[in-house]
C-alpha cells in the first residue's frame, strides 16, 4: 500500500478563491494509499516546504503530490524539498490547480471537483512512479564556433582565453565577415579594419583555436557536452602547408573579371584569389566554378607560376569529425540586394547601391580606394540620396521588422560622403530615426547639423533614370505631404538585413528553432537571449537578429561565458526523463524483437543495437538499447513500439494509463 502525502496550496488566494481547498484536502485524504493530506496558504514558502519535509519523515511517505501552480513553475522547488527530506525527487509530482483550474474557472462546485480530479490523477500517477537517478554525462571541453565574423571571432577568443579549445569554422576563404567590409564604424568613425584585423590575426595565432576556413558544417549529432560535428573542408586546391602566400598566382591568373564578393560586386577578383589583402589566412583558394582549368580542362597558369608547387588540382572535399561539448552559432546576416526593389529599378541602375556597396566605395581598401565614384561612369556624384528602411518595416515585402543598424549607418554614409565630397548634396529619406545607443543620437545630430545632410521624413515611391540622372520621387510628410523629386547622381538603399542564406538548413541540421524570417530563435526573448532551445548550442551576433558591432561583440562574449560555464563542470547532470528498453531474465532477455523501427523514428539517433550473447559468446538476439546521453525524452519511440518494449521514465505507460483511468473511473 502506498503512503502518499498530498499538499494543497492556497497560493494566497489565487487557488482558494475559486477552489474549496479544504474539501480537496479532505476528500483526497480519504483516497486509497493517501497517508496524509493538508492544505496551506503558501506551499512554496519556507514553512510550506518544511511541512512537506516533516511529513515525508513523519509518515514515511513514498510519494508526494503538491496541488499548487504549474509544474513548469515550481516542480524543481518541491522536488528539491523532497530530496532534502530523503525522498527520491522523482516521487514528487504536481497537480496544476492554479493555471489549469482556479484561474480559468469561476468559483463553483465543478471547479472544486475538477481540482479534486486533478489531484487524484497525480496521486494515481505517483503510485506508479519509480525512484529515478539523475543522469550524469561527461563534458567534452571543446567548443565549435560556426562563423568567423566579428561574433565568431570574439566568441572564439573569449572561450580560448578561458583555456578551452575552440574549433572555428568559416564558410569563406577568410575570416572577418561583414565587419571586414566596412569602411568606418559609427559612432566613432574609426576604421573597421584597423580594429578588426588584429583580432583576426589573434585568432589565427591563438594556441587554443583551430581554424577551418573554406569549411562548412555537414552535420551535428549528439547532445550537450557530447556533440559530434562533421565538417566539410571544401577543396581549396592550394596546399596551405607549402603555400607562402606570395600572391604570384593571383597576378598571373587570366580570369580576372569575377565580381568580388568582398567588394559587394563592385570590384573584380581572379579565379585563384584571396578575398582581401588582410585576409586570414592570407593564402589563396581556387574558385572552381570560374577557373579555366576546371571549366575547360586547360590553363594551369597558376601552377606554372607557383614556385613551391602548392596547387592541388585533384584535391577533393574532405569531411572531418570533431568532438565538441558546445556550439556557438555566429553565422551572421545578409543584406537584400537592389534587385529586391522593383520600384527602384529591379537592380538595373548601376548607380543604385546597397549600403554595403557604399561601404566598399567609402573604404580605403575598396575598388575606388575610398573615393565616392559612380559605378556607371566613375564620376563623383554631386547629389546623393540615401533611402532608409529599404525593405525593412514593410510587411508587403515580407520584412515587417526593423533592421536596426540602417539608421546609424545611413547617417554615417551621409557623413562620410559629405566629408569626401565637399560640394556634394546628400538627402536621406527616412521613416523614423532610431538612434538608441551610446552617442548614437549625437552622431545623427552631427550629420544633420554639422554635415548639413538633408533629412526628409518620407518614403520614396520610385527611382528612375533619365538623362543620366536618377530621378528620386518621394514625399516629405513633414511638410504637408509635398512631393519631392530629386535628380540624384547616386542612390543608396539601406536594404533590409536578412537571415544568411542557408540558415534554415543549418538550423535543421542543428535542431535549433528559427523564426519566420529564418533568424535563429533564442530560448527566451528576455532571459535566455544567447541560448537556443537545444541545450549546448548558443547564439552570437546577427544570426539571431540584425544588430550592430558592440551588441554583437557583447552577445558573443555572453555566449562565450555560457560555454565556459558549461565547461567548468566535468560532468553534466541531466533529468532522467529518458526512454528505456525493458530487460528481462533469460530466456526472454527483453520483449524487444529488434525490428528497429524505433531507430528510424528517433530524432536523436539515440537507439543503438545491443547484441545479446550466450555464455559461449554466440549471438542470441539483437535488441534495441537507448543511449541515455542522446535521448532527449520525447517518447516518440514509446508510442511507436508495438510490443511496448520501450518506456519513458517519468511518463511511463503505467503512469499515464493510471492518470487517464483515474479521471474516468467514478
Amino acid at each position: 500500500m502506498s503512503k502518499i502525502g498530498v499538499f494543497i496550496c492556497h497560493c494566497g488566494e489565487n487557488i482558494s478563491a475559486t477552489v474549496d481547498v479544504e474539501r480537496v484536502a479532505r476528500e483526497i485524504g480519504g483516497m486509497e494509499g493517501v497517508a496524509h493530506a493538508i492544505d496551506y496558504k503558501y506551499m512554496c514558502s519556507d514553512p510550506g516546504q518544511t511541512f512537506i519535509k516533516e511529513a515525508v519523515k513523519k509518515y514515511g511517505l513514498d510519494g508526494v503530490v503538491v496541488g499548487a501552480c504549474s509544474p513548469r513553475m515550481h516542480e524543481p522547488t518541491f522536488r528539491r524539498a523532497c530530496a532534502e527530506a530523503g525522498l527520491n525527487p522523482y516521487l514528487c509530482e504536481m497537480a496544476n490547480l492554479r493555471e489549469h483550474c482556479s484561474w480559468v474557472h469561476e468559483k463553483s462546485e465543478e471547479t472544486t471537483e475538477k481540482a479534486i480530479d486533478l489531484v487524484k490523477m497525480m496521486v494515481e500517477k505517483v503510485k506508479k512512479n519509480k525512484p529515478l537517478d539523475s543522469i550524469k554525462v561527461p563534458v567534452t571541453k571543446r567548443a565549435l564556433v560556426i562563423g568567423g565574423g566579428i561574433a565568431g571571432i570574439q566568441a572564439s577568443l573569449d572561450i580560448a582565453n578561458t583555456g578551452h579549445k575552440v574549433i572555428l569554422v568559416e564558410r569563406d576563404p577568410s575570416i572577418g565577415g561583414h565587419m571586414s567590409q566596412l569602411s568606418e564604424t559609427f559612432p566613432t568613425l574609426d576604421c573597421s579594419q584597423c580594429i578588426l584585423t588584429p583580432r583576426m590575426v589573434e585568432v589565427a595565432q591563438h594556441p587554443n583555436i583551430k581554424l577551418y576556413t573554406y569549411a562548412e558544417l555537414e552535420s551535428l549529432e549528439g547532445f550537450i557536452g557530447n556533440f559530434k560535428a562533421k565538417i566539410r573542408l571544401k577543396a581549396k586546391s592550394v596546399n596551405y602547408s607549402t603555400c607562402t602566400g606570395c600572391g604570384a598566382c593571383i597576378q598571373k591568373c587570366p580570369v580576372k573579371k569575377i565580381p568580388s564578393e568582398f567588394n559587394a560586386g563592385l570590384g573584380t577578383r581572379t579565379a585563384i584569389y584571396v578575398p582581401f589583402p588582410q585576409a586570414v589566412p592570407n593564402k589563396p583558394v581556387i574558385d572552381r566554378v570560374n577557373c579555366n582549368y576546371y571549366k575547360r580542362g586547360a590553363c594551369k597558369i597558376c601552377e606554372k607560376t607557383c614556385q613551391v608547387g602548392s596547387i592541388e588540382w585533384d584535391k577533393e572535399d574532405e569531411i572531418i569529425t570533431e568532438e565538441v561539448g558546445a556550439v556557438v552559432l555566429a553565422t551572421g546576416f545578409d543584406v537584400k540586394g537592389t534587385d529586391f526593389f522593383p520600384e527602384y529599378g529591379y537592380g538595373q541602375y548601376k548607380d543604385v547601391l546597397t549600403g554595403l556597396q557604399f561601404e566598399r566605395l567609402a573604404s580605403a581598401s575598396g575598388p575606388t580606394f575610398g573615393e565616392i565614384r559612380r559605378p556607371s561612369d566613375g564620376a563623383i556624384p554631386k547629389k546623393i540620396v540615401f533611402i532608409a528602411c529599404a525593405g525593412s518595416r514593410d510587411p508587403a515585402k515580407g520584412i515587417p521588422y526593423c533592421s536596426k543598424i540602417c539608421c546609424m549607418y545611413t547617417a554615417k554614409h551621409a557623413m562620410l560622403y559629405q566629408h569626401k565630397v565637399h560640394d556634394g548634396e546628400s538627402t536621406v529619406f527616412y521613416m523614423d530615426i532610431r538612434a538608441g545607443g551610446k552617442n548614437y543620437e549625437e552622431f545623427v545630430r552631427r550629420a544633420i547639423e554639422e554635415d548639413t545632410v538633408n533629412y526628409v521624413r518620407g518614403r520614396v515611391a520610385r527611382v528612375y533614370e533619365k538623362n543620366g540622372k536618377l530621378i528620386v520621387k518621394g514625399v516629405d510628410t513633414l511638410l504637408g505631404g509635398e512631393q519631392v523629386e530629386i535628380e540624384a547622381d547616386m542612390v543608396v538603399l539601406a536594404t533590409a538585413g536578412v537571415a544568411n542564406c542557408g540558415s534554415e538548413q543549418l538550423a535543421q541540421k542543428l535542431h535549433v528553432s528559427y523564426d519566420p524570417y529564418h533568424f535563429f530563435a533564442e530560448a527566451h526573448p528576455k532571459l535566455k537571449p544567447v541560448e537556443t532551445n537545444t541545450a549546448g548550442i548558443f547564439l552570437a551576433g546577427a544570426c539571431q537578429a540584425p544588430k550592430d558591432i558592440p551588441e554583437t561583440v557583447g552577445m558573443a562574449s555572453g555566449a562565450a561565458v555560457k560555454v565556459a560555464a558549461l565547461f567548468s563542470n566535468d560532468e553534466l547532470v541531466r533529468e532522467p526523463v529518458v526512454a528505456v528498453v525493458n530487460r528481462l531474465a533469460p530466456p526472454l532477455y527483453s520483449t524487444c524483437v529488434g525490428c528497429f523501427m524505433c531507430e528510424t523514428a528517433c530524432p536523436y539517433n539515440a537507439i543503438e543495437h545491443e547484441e545479446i550473447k550466450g555464455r559461449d559468446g554466440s549471438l542470441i538476439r539483437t535488441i534495441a538499447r537507448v543511449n541515455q546521453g542522446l535521448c532527449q525524452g520525447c517518447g516518440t519511440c514509446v508510442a511507436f513500439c508495438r510490443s511496448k518494449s520501450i518506456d519513458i521514465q517519468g511518463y511511463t505507460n503505467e503512469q499515464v494509463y493510471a492518470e487517464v483511468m483515474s479521471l474516468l473511473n467514478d
Partner: protein
Amino acid sequence: MSSNTDFEPKIIAFVCNWCTYAGADLTGTSRLKYATNVKIVRFPCTGRIDFLLLLKSFAQGADGVIVSGCHPNDCHYTSGNFHARRRWIAFRSILDLMGVDIRRIQYSWVSAAEGSKWADLVNNTVADIRALGPYAEYQKVADYLEKEGYNEEA
C-alpha cells in the same frame, strides 16, 4: 438521445509539455475562462501519445478527447509532432473504417503563446461534444462481457 442541455461531457486532453501545456498555463495567467469539463494529461511530446490511450478513454466513459501539441516546425524535439500527425492520420482512417465516431477526437496545435486559442479550443470542443451527446454507443459495449452477448437480442 436524451436532452443534451444538462449533459456535461467528460473530455480528456492529451497535450505536450512544451507548447500546449504551457499554452494552457498562459490561459491561466491571462485569466481567460473556459469550461471545467476538460482535464489535462501532460506528456513530454505529442509523439509520446499512444493511440491506445484514446481508445481506452472512450471505453472508460470519455465523451470526447482533445489531442494538442506544438505547431509544425515548433516541436521541442523537432519532429515529435510530425510523427504524431502521421499517427493521427492513420488512426483516424482506421477508426472511421471501424465506425468509431472520429468527430469526438479534436486534434489541435496550440503553442505556448496561444493562451486564448486554448480557451477557445476547450470551449468549442465542449460545445461540439455537447451537441453530439454522450458517446453511449461506445460506452454501452465497453462493459459487455460475452454474457450480455452482442449477438443476443436485447
